[in-house]
């Protein structure tokens, strides 16, 4: 492989760094201990013994779940910006691509917030810091997608994903979701082809992950569109075309009308069959979303088995995000005294002890 020889010259330090950070991901025992906590203070005490260290201890007021959440995000941002500021191309572009998905989510959230007449100052703290950009606060001004593109987002990196999304219809809640799907479709396809041009192990690792992501979006769009007035053709325009479902699976999905038919489509693909399979008796019920998350975690952990590729960066960020979701979930359960549901988190790195 050509990349092997020169990879470490440019990206070796960062790969080492990210692998070191990966070692700090919470283990089974950590989760076990966290799940035993009775208050957030106990969780704070336990998190102190992990790599999070004194992250939570500096706060003077009483802990709340949203504070934990924002601290976790801050933590992730610090780590990410450390990686980003030391990155050389093409890794820097790759890392930028990771942030774009958060930017899309932020834009959509700001527009929905503006539709509900919320104040921007109230919305901004809720945006994911990884997807922050200068023009963020002005997003609410736009009335149509075209305006959004030509006035506000044209200078941002998101502009490249707007080819298909430009339309003159007014932004309402439905339209915003469609916009999000279109942006994501363009984003995933662009990211996919970028990884392909990098080639080597990055391609081998990243393409399956992105294909999974694309297919997940297709499934979720289909499932969520039941009961809305989204037509088949509208729907099929939103499916990202870089997944494993493309093209046959997507055309089948476009025609699906209920959950059973979606399941029938998934049955043709062994990778997705397990997600839609009925849960084994005895194990607790899991939502479709959780099952997809589980599968995503599985795919992302695989990235660490190989060296000299960019996949570890993507996987690390995604795993860390999942970890934040887990911690927030446990914290929610702890504060609401829902001990029975506390074990519904998705552990990362099952085998490690």
């Amino acid at each position, binding site marked *: 492989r050509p990349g092997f020889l020169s990879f470490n010259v440019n990206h070796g330090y960062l790969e080492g760094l990210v692998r070191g950070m990966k070692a700090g991901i919470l283990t089974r025992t950590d989760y076990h201990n966290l799940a035993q*906590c009775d208050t957030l203070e106990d969780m704070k*005490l336990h998190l102190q013994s992990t790599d999070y260290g004194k992250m939570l201890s500096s706060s003077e007021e009483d802990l709340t779940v949203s504070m934990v959440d924002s601290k976790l995000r801050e933590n992730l941002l610090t780590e990410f910006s450390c990686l980003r500021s030391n990155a050389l191309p093409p890794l820097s572009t790759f890392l930028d691509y990771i942030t774009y998905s958060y930017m899309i989510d932020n834009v959509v959230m700001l527009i929905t917030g503006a539709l509900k007449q919320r104040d921007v100052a109230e919305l901004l703290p809720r945006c994911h810091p990884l997807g922050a950009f*200068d023009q963020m*606060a*002005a997003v*609410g001004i736009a009335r149509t997608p075209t305006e959004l593109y*030509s*006035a506000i987002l044209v200078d941002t990196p998101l502009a490249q994903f707007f080819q298909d999304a430009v339309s003159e219809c007014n932004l309402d809640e439905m339209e915003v979701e469609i916009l999000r799907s279109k942006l994501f479709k363009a984003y995933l396809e662009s990211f996919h082809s970028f990884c392909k041009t990098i080639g080597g192990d990055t391609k081998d690792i990243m393409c399956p992950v992105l294909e999974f992501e694309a297919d997940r979006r297709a499934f979720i769009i289909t499932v969520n569109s039941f009961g809305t007035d989204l037509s088949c053709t509208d729907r099929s325009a939103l499916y990202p075309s870089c997944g494993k479902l493309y093209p046959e699976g997507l055309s089948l999905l476009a025609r699906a009308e209920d959950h059973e038919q979606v399941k029938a489509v998934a049955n043709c693909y062994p990778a997705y069959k397990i997600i839609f399979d009925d849960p084994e008796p005895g194990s607790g019920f899991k939502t479709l979303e959780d099952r997809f998350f589980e599968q995503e975690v599985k795919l992302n952990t695989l990235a660490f088995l190989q060296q000299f590729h960019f996949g570890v960066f993507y996987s690390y960020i995604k795993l860390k995000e999942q970890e934040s979701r887990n911690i927030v979930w446990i914290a929610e359960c702890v504060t609401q005294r829902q001990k029975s549901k506390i074990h519904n988190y998705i552990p990362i790195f099952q085998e490690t002890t």
Partner: protein
Amino acid sequence: MCSLLRGEEMCLAQLFLQSGSAYDCINELGELGLVEFRDLNPGVNAFQRKHVNEIKKCEEMERILEVKKADISLPEGDVNPVAPLPKHVMAIMEQLQRLEVELGEVTRNKEKLQRNLLELTEYTHMLRTTRNFVQRTSEVSVFISGLIQRTKIEAFERMLWRVCKGYTILSYAEVEEYLEDPDTGEPTKSVVFLISYWGDQIGQKVKKICDCYHCHLYPYPSSNEERTDVVEGLRTRIQDLHTVLHRTDDYLKQVLMKASESVYTWVIQVKKMKAIYFILNLCSFDVTNKCLIAEVWCPVNDIPTLRRALEEGSRKSGATVPSFVNRIPTNDTPPTLIRTNKFTSGFQNIVDAYGVGNYREVNPAPFTIITFPFLFAVMFGDLGHGVIMALFALWMVLYENNRKLKNTRNEIWNTFFEGRYIILMMGLFSIYTGLIYNDCFSKSLNIFGSGWSVKAMFEAKVWKDADIRGNRVLTLDPNVTGVFRGPYPLGIDPIWNLASNRLTFLNSYKMKMSVILGVIHMSFGVILSTYNYLHFRKKHSLYLVFLPELLFLLCLFGYLVFMIFYKWLVFTAKDSRLAPSILIHFINMFLMQAPTLHRLGMYRVRFDFADEFLHQAIHTIEYCLGCVSNTASYLRLWALSLAHAQLSEVLWTMVMRVGLRMDTSLGVFFLVPVFGLFAVLTVSILLVMEGLSAFLHALRLHWVEFQNKFYSGTGVKFCPFSFSLLPSSFEHDGLL
């Protein structure tokens, strides 16, 4: 001495601490550092233990102190305040919290004032700059004016244009001064802008865009008179603010000064208190819930001291029922404690780096004190280099109490400083071996007068003048009377320094010497193993392991050593031609007696179980092969010593001799830089680099060749609960 050879005898003891006096007792033990506590509640989570609240409180105090450290300069000094009593904790806590609140208020006030000042300054700038923007005011247009960061103005202008489709006019000018950003504290350049627009809808959009770019907006005066009034008013307010800010600063300084007196003490006190509660969490309650039970490892010799400490603790807390110690029998292996002083600790560290010895196992460290520097010096043998090294180490030893040397944070320097006694010994031994090799910066010293005489060759009429002129190289014949007058009294005869076959001679000598030293070293290791067998009551091992091992070693390599000595002693210069080759003889012996190896293995079969048999068979094979390879390994003594001598000779001929060969008049000036170069290279290559390499090889010879004969090194180190070992050395927490 016995303690250094075997380590302290340890015992497991139970401490019964009355709940009232437990804190004081643990405090007393922490000051003394006598015992290692065992965790009696291993199944309990960190946050479910008894004193978790106290620990949390300590952490809270630590957090407050942590915040302070940025503002407060701590005084120098080695104060060692005792841990505060539990009842005094609240007072400290209160003081700390009051201090925190006070500091927080003052800083917040100061920040507010600073923000205020910034706003006023910005406003003034804006008014001053925008004066010239608008020549002609029209009734319809509305103005928005403010400041924006220099870097954002371009994007701002573009978005304004795109969103408002040209219904705005933007004019801007840069502010000359740098204004301090209140969030980051960095000086930044700002731009004053003025937007005029028509229509309400556009106005809302403009305001939103201004918000988005974090512009600081200020009202735009409608007339010139109003403008002048506002500027005047602003000037006086800015002056006022400056005086207030000055006062606040003074007050802040006072508060900090007051706090800095006690903060250092508090930091240590809180650390100690936290440690005590941590230990209390390791203890368990007895059934009556009246006293705490702790299990500790303690050196047997220290038990009286331990008792006294407990009495002292009980007395201090005024408890009626005393706390007491109870030795309990145990089958667990105790941790290893070997007491060291500043001289032996370096050598003990060398041994511990390989592995901490098992409990009561023979400790190689006391022997290492001599053998390590000696083996090093065999490889590093040079009088001059040895003197430099010894002087350097001596300087460190003499100034070891100097604070500057001791408290440096340079890791490399610390390594050298910790090993100052090792370096001293290495230097002294190098002086000795340098004398034996007769090497001083690769030159020989002729102290006693050479034992060889060239003149005698002429007197005996063996050489004539023509021989001298005709030949570049001539051989001295020791058989001619008067040429060889007996050996040089100490070490190698200096005449070898001139001989062209010097290397051949030295190689033969050093190679044989390495084998002799190696065999002695290894035999000594094997003999030390008897101490382990005797102590651990394994008498059978004495006959079945030790004796065969020693026999094997001595019969093969001991015999080799014997042959070397025999050849040295029996064959003189006269009959040297008849001397046999040891190497050929040894190989022949091996080929004829090769089955020995197998017989040793078979010998043990009949007596042991299958398991033991397999283990011993492997051990036997390993030992036999090991003996051969280890003996060969000692040849590194020769190789390194040769390399060192050659390197220093090369340095001399390539650098120093070039300078010495110059003309006298020029050479004087030339010699100064040449000597400088010679000195630098000597220190950096010959002393530091070669020294490190010889050190590593000596280390290997001890770890592998010597210690594998008797030392297993799989023990656990005794780490007592002691305040002095706490990470209270503030460097770790960044508190100093």
